[in-house]
């Protein structure tokens, strides 16, 4: 059970997140987006990914974090889902990190709000916590 697991990591404000590397289709820099009026606010727009239309989800809005400064462009972490790829807009991309299940702990009960739904737990790395994101929940915005 203590098998190593690879996480693709990224940053959102001061939080350090990771999603299972298997779930990530690709990581790309900022793309032009077409906004979708009337859509839920977390949907930032639609991206043309080599002919495929990908919905971009603003992860800062999803987690109730303040918006990214206007001069900073978000990056795309494209996640595979049952309904085709969805892009998560994040501040910055980190490395692919190998983590050990021994260092894993579930999210504390005191965690509230939308974050509670999305953060599964944390890997206690040296000097910082790597939060694991429930990507399936992150992309489901119908509830919003």
């Amino acid at each position, binding site marked *: 059970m203590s098998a190593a697991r690879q996480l693709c990591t990224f940053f959102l404000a001061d939080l350090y997140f990771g999603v299972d590397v298997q779930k990530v289709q690709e990581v790309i820099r900022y793309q032009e987006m077409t906004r979708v009026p009337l859509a839920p606010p977390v949907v930032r727009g639609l991206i043309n990914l080599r*002919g495929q*239309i990908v919905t971009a989800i603003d992860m800062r809005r999803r987690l109730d974090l303040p918006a990214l400064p206007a001069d900073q462009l978000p990056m795309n972490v494209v996640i595979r889902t049952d*309904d085709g790829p*969805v892009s998560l807009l994040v501040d910055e991309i980190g490395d692919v990190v190998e983590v050990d299940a021994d260092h894993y702990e579930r999210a504390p009960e005191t965690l509230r709000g939308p974050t509670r739904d999305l953060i599964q737990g944390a890997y206690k790395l040296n000097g910082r916590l790597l939060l694991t994101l429930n990507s399936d929940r992150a992309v489901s*915005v119908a509830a919003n």
Partner: protein
Amino acid sequence: MDELEEIIKEFLVESYENLDQLDRDLLALEDAPDDRKRLSSVFRTIHTIKGTCGFLGFPILEHVAHVGESLLVRLRDGELRLDGAITTGLLAMVDAVRTMLTNITQTKTEGENHYESLVEVLDQLRLGQVPQPVAVVAVVAVAEHATSGANFDFDSSGVKERVEATVDDLDAMVVELTETPSTASSSKASSKKSRKPTVAKAKPAAKSQATKSPKRSSKQTVAPAIETATVTSIAMTTQAAIAAPIHAEPLVTAASLPPAEKSMTTQNHNATARASSISEPASLSEPTDKGQAVAETTVRLDVALLDKLMNLVGELVLVRNQILQYSRSTEDASLITASQRLNLITSELQEGVMKTRMQPIQNAWAKLPRVLRDLSMTCGKKVQIKMEGAETELDKTILEAIRDPLTHIVRNSVDHGIEAPGVREAKGKPAEGTLLLRAFHEGGQVNIEICDDGGGINLARVKEKALSQGLISPDQAAAMSERELMNLILLPGFSTAATVTNVSGRGVGMDVVKTNVEKIGGTLEINSVYGEGTTLRIKIPLTLAIVPALMVGCGEDRYAIPQNNLVELVRLEGERVQSEIEHIHNVPVYRLRGNLLPLLFLDEQLQLRPARSAAELRQDSEVNIVVLSAEGRQFGLVVNQINDTQEIVVKPLSQHLKAISTYAGVTIMGDGAVALILDVTGIAKRAGVVSEARDRNKAQQTVKEQACGEQKHTLLLLGMGEERRMAMPLSLVARLEEISISSVERADGQQVVQYGGQIMPLIHLGDVLGSGSVRADGATTLQVVVYSENGRSVGLVVDRILDIVETTLTMQHAGKRMGVLGSAVIQSRVTDLLDIHNLILSTDQDFFAPPPTALAV
């Protein structure tokens, strides 16, 4: 095991196709019971099913098929004649087989039902008895197989005899043919060579069918070949063709003909060219070889593969658009040439791939004759079905989508439309009703019409029902036009049927049909003349994947509006913005040719800005209005810019956005940017343009439309006598002619002229209307207005042809005299409007009868 499954799968696919064919064949046979070819084709199909399932181990299926086959043997041998009861029995057998096949598909077994009663019925039918309750004939059942076997043997020996005679005939002919001077010995050799593979091919077919094919077909097949075979080289071909079957087994002539010809190709082009013209009637006359030929030139494909190809072509179209856009901004000649070629090839590829998905509408219609037969039996009505344009093709997905609506409409027509035979005869109609299905392409769309010559829609009753069901208020009812009333039928829950039958009348239906048709971007139209029949017209696009769209701009964003919703574009500038956009309590409207057009602002609809006040609006220097139509209601969508039109590839919305009714999909533009496709109906609904109040609005609008329509009448003005002016709609005029008086002849007490190969009677309007006529002295010609209907013409002789005017038509007082509808003021002169229909009837009562399709009138 896998291999066996594969075989079973193939068997199922093939059998389903065969069963559909069987349904059609049996129905055709009911009309023409002596059609031997069809009978043998039905027989072969059942035989094949029986043979295969025996081999695959489905005993029940085999038994049912066997009993059916035994019955068919007697039919084919002419010992029994196919009638309604036998057809019903055979159709029941087809259904049973279909059920079992479904079972096999789902559970890999043929099911528990042994169909004993069906078998009994079929057995009785075979013995020439009208089916009795099961018990009575149960005893006979066992003895039958022996009899049927004997029959079969006798039959085959009989056929053999006849076949031998035919072969003798053929031999004689071959001798005759070879005796004509022949130099093409090389081609003779080659035809001998070619014989080998031909014979080999022919053998399996021959084994199963040779003894069963009726003698007549072989004669027919060869006959045209012999007739044409006067040229030596062709004689060779014919010989080869005839020789081959003689060496194999008789009667496979037609099957072996095409391959024999193929081998000749290199030898003698001339002969081949003519020979292939021979093979055509040959292949038509014998379904067996047709099946073989088809098998060689067609492939079965998975629809998923076609869908994938279609998607890829869609992508290619997008890339092409991008490259075209880029090439416009460059002066690199070779890039421009290459991109133009890419453009052409992509268009052709797109067309080609679309074609692979195209299927004749026949596929959707094929089941209808069966539905109709069952229905007319249940309802006790007689209905014949006619099909026109069954080869009209449309996209597979669309075909699937209209299958059910079509069935529903046909059900409706039979149940509500066509009257019982007695009623029909009382009305002077033929006892048998006619249902006409017609399909044709028009303006990039497919039109499907379903016409019946039944009772038509009683609008008074529709109104009554709608009132009693509370669908409309009395005020609305009074204001409604005929078209409006007609469309009430399409409202949910509406039914005029006096009684609810198990066929229809429950009031769920036409609205579902309409919704389904609209779902695929189509429209539904009803035309009905009370007492004479109803025509439903469905218009649907050829394909859904790639549609033409208008690109509009809203702020920095671009949106696509599918062109089928587009009516027109209006642009207001400067002064006109202030003067022509009016407000009703802050709701902007625009007067479009006298109609109030509600305006929606796209940016407001998308909630990109708060609603404009009237004052804010006046500050705009220009307003672009896209006039759109949704559910029969028009409204104007105000956008910032109107760009060009483009062929766009419709891509579905992601799960996150599906719930937003404003969008119909997404597309990728030439520059690679993503653009949303607006759902016009969705926008209209969201904004309340289309709502519960819509019927009232629509009624008012239609009244206005009528007023509008009246303004648009184009009339031909005629002069009679000294002063009198007459008018008739220009649409009724086929031609204006000047006919020399000397060419007028007399026939049957009438003045006639020869006109376009026909005898055209002349009607002197002056005489008929009693207005008298003045003719300039010494005039040698007559002014004739030609009116044509159903390919027949009549000439109306007038004194002067004055003018063609487009004018308002306000009938001042209705005409009391024959031939005059009423009077109106046209060009400030009182003008009589001619009642052409009655005018013609008064001189020739039979002119309008008999109508050619009985429905078109």
